[in-house]
């Protein structure tokens, strides 16, 4: 085990830690928004159902935050432990956003503590709602700052090279590099849609298991509506990301689209596989759509992979990552739209079993889309860690113990993942919403079918 390639092990350990952290980080960005919306409606309409929603979501959130914080601390330290050469060089240019991210965490952590322990301490419920805003903002800011770092790795700017080191550093230009706008937009919207979708999935699941109560119906309506809004924005942001790639990182788009020759009016290819001549087989083909995706013009020219030397081409399998992500994006949009249409027309039932199952599926699928999206983005940057300047190979640690560390962390994440799930299940199983509602708000009628 000791003689495994340290670079490979470094990549695996980072993939694993980030792949695990991103689940909880996404929840940390999106769930506060959902809690805040629910509490706001609850206070505004004086509707205990919504306030109960906010309370119960917040209670589950504490658990996922804890895992988010510890895995985030892990990745933060691992950046230096696993990629020391990268941090030594890039630290000169990107430490500003990393540093500001810590302030965002600080801000978020402080107000989260206040929010969670002051439900009934203020005379006006509105005051308590105000405390949720810094949490939403803090979570959003941390996503923004870390995403600028990732954007920098894709389109590095804000420095000059002198004797193999970065000189004349301008941290602000580095932060606002060309990849930043589309990436930040897409990461934020995708985090919000994912959290709305996972909460919708929970409500749908409850309604499939038991008779639908008012509480769950309201939860479903709220979460699916938010899903719809952010699914639309995510699709727009994804389109912008593709346009960004076409302009600044065309080898990534070309690899993701199996687009080998530069041509006008390029077709969009989905799924399928490549034969020996690198010809796509059994694919879905959408005429000229790739040109549109890349430049908003069906006849525009799209750069093909042939223009890039062999050694800097990303792996071709990222095609599937791209396709799966987009397919899920369209699925989320379609399902939430269907629900909204059904609920608008009186005589149709938006709570029919088939639709509930689809809504239930959209939660886990959204998380898969997040993972696929990141794999596309990171794998599509290969072989670079800082595109054009430093390869992954040059950046990795030289320590021979990295293989051992991989297994250690794998064990840790298995334990954390399991215990987190078990704790969350127990928490809500032993304390169903209906009972809690009655206890806290004895005045309202029990949530029957109305």
């Amino acid at each position, binding site marked *: 085990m000791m003689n495994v390639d340290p670079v490979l092990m470094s990549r695996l350990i980072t993939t694993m830690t980030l792949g695990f952290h991103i689940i909880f980080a996404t929840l940390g960005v999106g769930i506060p928004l959902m809690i805040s919306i629910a509490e706001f409606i609850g206070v505004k309409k004086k509707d205990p159902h919504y306030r109960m929603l906010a309370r119960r979501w917040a209670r589950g959130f504490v658990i996922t935050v804890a895992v988010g914080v510890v895995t985030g601390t892990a990745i933060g330290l691992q*950046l*230096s432990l696993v990629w020391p050469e990268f*941090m030594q060089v890039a630290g000169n240019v990107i430490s500003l956003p990393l*540093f500001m991210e*810590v302030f965002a965490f600080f801000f978020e952590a402080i107000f989260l*503590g206040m929010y969670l322990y*002051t439900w009934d301490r203020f005379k006006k419920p509105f005051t308590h709602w105000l405390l949720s805003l810094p949490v939403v903002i803090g979570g959003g800011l941390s996503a923004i700052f870390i995403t600028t770092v990732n954007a920098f790795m894709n389109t590095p700017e804000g420095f000059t090279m002198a004797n193999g080191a970065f000189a004349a550093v301008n941290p602000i230009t580095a932060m606002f590099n060309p990849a930043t706008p589309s990436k930040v937009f897409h990461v934020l919207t995708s985090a919000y849609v994912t959290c709305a979708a996972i909460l919708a999935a929970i409500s749908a699941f409850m309604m499939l298991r038991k008779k639908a109560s008012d509480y769950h119906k309201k939860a479903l309506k709220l979460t699916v509506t938010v899903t719809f809004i952010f699914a639309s924005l995510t699709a727009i942001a994804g389109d912008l990301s593709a346009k960004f790639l076409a302009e600044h990182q065309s080898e990534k788009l070309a690899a993701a689209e199996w687009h080998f020759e530069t041509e006008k009016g390029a077709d969009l290819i989905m799924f399928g596989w490549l034969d020996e001549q690198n010809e796509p087989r059994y694919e879905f083909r959408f005429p000229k759509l790739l040109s549109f995706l890349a430049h908003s013009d069906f006849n525009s020219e799209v750069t093909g992979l042939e223009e890039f030397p062999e050694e800097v081409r990303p792996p071709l399998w990222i095609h599937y990552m791209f396709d799966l992500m987009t397919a899920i994006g369209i699925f989320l949009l379609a399902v939430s739209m269907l629900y909204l249409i059904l609920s608008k027309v009186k005589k149709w039932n938006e709570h029919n079993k088939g639709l509930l199952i689809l809504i239930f599926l959209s939660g886990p699928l959204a998380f898969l889309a997040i993972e696929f999206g990141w794999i596309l983005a990171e794998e599509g940057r290969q072989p670079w860690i800082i595109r054009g300047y430093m390869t992954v190979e040059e950046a990795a640690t030289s*320590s021979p113990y990295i293989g051992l560390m991989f297994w250690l962390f794998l064990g840790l994440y298995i334990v954390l993942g399991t215990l987190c799930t078990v704790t969350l299940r127990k928490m809500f199983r032993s304390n169903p919403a209906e009972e809690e509602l009655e206890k806290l708000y004895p005045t309202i009628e029990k949530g029957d079918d109305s």
Partner: protein
Amino acid sequence: MSYEMIGITVLWIFLYGYLIVASVDFGAGFYAYYAKITKKDHVMNQLISRYLSPVWEVTNVFFVFFFVGVVGFFPDTAHYYGTALLVPGSIAIILLAIRGSFYAFENYGSKKSNVYMFLYGATGLLIPASLSMALTLSEGGFIVEENGVVSLKYFKLFTNPYSWSVVFLAIVSVLFISATFLTFYAARANDRPALTLVRKYALFWSVPTIIASLTAFIALSQHNQRHYEAMLDLWWMFGLSVGFFLIAMALLYQGKHYGLAFISVMFQFFFAFFGYGAGHLPYILDPYITITEGATHQSMGFALIVAFIAGLCLLIPSLILLMRLFLFDADYVKGKR
């Protein structure tokens, strides 16, 4: 002051902040477990969880702040410490991860588990022990670079009296700081039985704290003569430290002004910690990294300092609000809310 001097001062202040808040947290974990096995948990654990629940995440950020800041201001640290610390650093991460998440599982989940409690208590001592190793390494002699390859001399580290004296000092300090804080908190809560118990702990751990400090001081003279002499030149800082220690002891002993006693302990560690740090300069890692040569570009240094000031303007009011809600709100502390 040059920007690298501002940088290291800011980082050192945050490390000091972490030392205090994390010691309270780590020690509390140990005491909670100890109370449980000695069947005194009904006396203490309510007190501990009322304070810890709202703030544990904030404690963690202090630490994150420090290591992100060090690599930001002094990127060379990533090359040396990053490579050398892969194994000990990973172990520290895992301990921190176990501690943080198990605290949440235990406290907010419905089940009370003895295993969680044990891990929570044990990590409370193991984490300071492992983190204090980083300070030992900075003295030089343990991290070496040969032919461009950085490595850590484990055998030398684990057989060195200085490194063990630091571990010992870290553990007893944690227990001492934590006990004085809990004494203050119990007094505020008017919780007589808990107060008697934690005050006893505070008095008990005071003597080992002083012994451990002296031992570490002497061991340092054997290991890094330069640093030792630099610290002797700063004798007045250590004198002040001992002075505040004596004030704290007197107050604890007489059983009054526990708030003041805790503040004195904070000053005791403040002067010792800054005396140690000032003597350490200009080295961040003896002999490879100094604050001037290892510093980041000037433009980044300024940007970080500006970000820092802006960040403080945001944080200080928020921290004050947090403390007013959970530390100084008498009703909350007493458990009425």
